[in-house]
């Protein structure tokens, strides 16, 4: 057979899967990294992701423009972030509990408003064919890269640079590491956290838009299957470093593609085990990089889980 790639299908599927599946993880984890760097945890991003997916799909169906959908998702996501930040600005409010409440709220209203949009088809986001140099259709398909993935990659580098080199980056870090020092500098931790949470929400909703408008590219109530929650965990795994978030998201995407790819080349025994690969990988890396002697490196000092 002419285009038989045999076992090469596995690494190719991992690469293709890393590119296809990772984008929601990238956006949610980058958003959460910014929020957590400012000293707050928003566990509600799963809800924001699902609502973003619904909003993007609905607006894309109504207007015929997928980018209008992405924009609508961002606005909605920022709204969820502002709500979280505003509630948490009251004294003695637990950000984790508020996050869980907003997660359920976001999923619930996404299902409610999303009902009429399960059937219609929305226009998809454009992809850039980076694989045209290859004569193999498999390679071309794997390297058909969506614009949002590239944006996510650029954003990861930009955030990493901004945390180190810009005033805004410094402000977010100070607020996250010590609210007292921030106040002494004349900064308002509440305001900074409000905006950092809103920013995180907007990014998470872009991840949702990718799910419903590109891959797998349809809105239904099972679209996320917990990816928003996984991405929040990825942030800790990536030690609050935007570049780390990007790498971890790629790793998860690739590991997720392993199960179907192995079955397709004939390794068919024990596929449930392969589906657990991303989680086993997480456990191993967490064990390998942890140390009993010190706190998690890079953890913001104000974070309620590390305080």
């Amino acid at each position, binding site marked *: 057979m002419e285009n038989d790639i045999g076992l090469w299908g596995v690494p190719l599927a991992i690469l293709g899967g890393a590119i296809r599946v990772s984008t929601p993880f990238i956006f949610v984890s980058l958003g959460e990294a910014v929020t957590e760097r400012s000293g707050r945890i928003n566990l509600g991003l799963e809800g924001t992701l699902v609502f973003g997916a619904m909003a993007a799909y609905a607006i894309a169906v109504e207007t015929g423009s997928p980018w209008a959908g992405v924009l609508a998702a961002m606005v909605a996501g920022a709204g969820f972030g502002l709500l979280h930040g505003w509630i948490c600005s009251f004294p003695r409010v637990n950000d984790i509990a508020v996050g869980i409440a907003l997660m359920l709220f976001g999923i619930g209203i996404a299902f409610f408003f999303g009902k009429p949009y399960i059937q219609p088809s929305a226009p998809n986001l454009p992809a850039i064919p980076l694989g045209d140099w290859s004569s193999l259709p*498999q390679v071309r398909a794997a390297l058909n890269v969506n614009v949002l993935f590239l944006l996510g990659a650029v954003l990861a580098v930009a955030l990493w640079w901004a945390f180190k080199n810009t005033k805004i980056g410094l402000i977010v870090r100070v607020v996250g590491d010590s609210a007292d020092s921030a106040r002494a500098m004349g900064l308002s931790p509440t305001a900074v956290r409000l905006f950092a949470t809103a920013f995180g929400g907007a990014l998470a909703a872009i991840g949702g838009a990718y799910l419903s408008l590109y*891959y797998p590219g349809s809105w239904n109530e*099972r679209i996320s299957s917990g990816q928003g929650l996984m991405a929040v965990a990825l942030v800790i795994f990536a030690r609050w470093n935007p570049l780390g978030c990007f790498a971890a998201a790629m790793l998860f995407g690739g590991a997720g593609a392993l*199960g179907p*790819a192995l079955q397709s080349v004939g390794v068919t025994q024990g596929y449930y085990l392969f*589906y657990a690969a991303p989680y086993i990988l997480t456990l191993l890396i967490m064990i390998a990089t942890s140390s009993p002697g010190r706190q998690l490196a890079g953890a913001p000092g104000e974070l309620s889980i590390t305080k």
Partner: protein
Amino acid sequence: MTDLAISRRSLLKTSAAGAALGLVGWPAFPTRVRAAATTIGFIYVGPKDDFGYNQAHAEGAKALKALDGIELVEEENVPETVDVQKTMESMINLDGASLLFPTSFGYFDPHMLAMCKKFPDVQFRHCGGLWDKSKHPTNAGSYFGYIAMGQYLNGVVAGHTTKSKKIGFVAAKPIPQVLNNVNAFLLGARAVDPTITCQVIFTGEWSLAVKEAEAVNALVDQGADVITCHVDGPKVVVQTAANRGAFVCGYHASQAPLAPEKYLTGAEWNWATVYTMYAKHLLAGEPLPNFTRGGIQDGFVKMSPLGPAVSEPARKQFEATLADIRKGGYAVIKGPLKDNRGKEIAAVGKAFPETAIELESTSFLVEGVQGSTS
């Protein structure tokens, strides 16, 4: 212990009745206020407009609205956990349902069986379960259709359409109904060309959009050019396959609008036949059958109209096979046949017609299917 347990709902009911009594001084009114109409409850595991399994059931349920004296209660997105027991209890106690259709595979054991014992006056009919007179209560029952025949016809069209001689199947879980469909799809294709193979990928869940899309990509990467599936909502599979340039055969409901050029045909449920039959028995006060099965000739299963990509020879063989199946008793699994590990399933001359009860506990994949059940 269990006899003493009071469910929250019964507690609420009693206290509400008590409150009414105390406040107004009237006797507690009966809970089944809607005695005039017969209420039938439908429970779905996913959204009822999913282009798939749940939509097929919901369309069947809709047919009952045309009947006089029937009232419907429906609930969607009910997980296959103790949640479905609560839903059933609420449909019985609050809506007064006298017949329930919990439609998802995992609802049967233990959830529906537990409810059958708790509410012996209510009738339960489950889709796909294997009701056994000796083991299960008489107010339970099950219905299903021989949809594997539809997948066999899908396979016939796929066998004519494939150029790579490799076809693909995205499957959810390795349960008998799914395995029958995989086997039938391949055997249908092999009725056209015995060198065709079928690659199956199990996703492990009824509805996992991203994994289903990945599975389609992996199948197409390995050269499969006609794809079908057995998952709850085939929308993602159909769209992804069509985007990759592969042809698709549908399942559960018609997905033709999603990929008009690439859609060949599809095996669809026609549950309206079954639900109308049950409802008419119920209205007439007759006992409901416990074990209901039927195929294409009984109107339980139908085929989507053939798509524009179907060739003339494919159409001819499709129609001839369909006519044979309509005669009843068609056997897809017939000897000599081995499974894909080389073990003999049927010796020469041995055939399992669609009605064979053995097929409801299938645990093998036939020779030519690449995949494994565990």
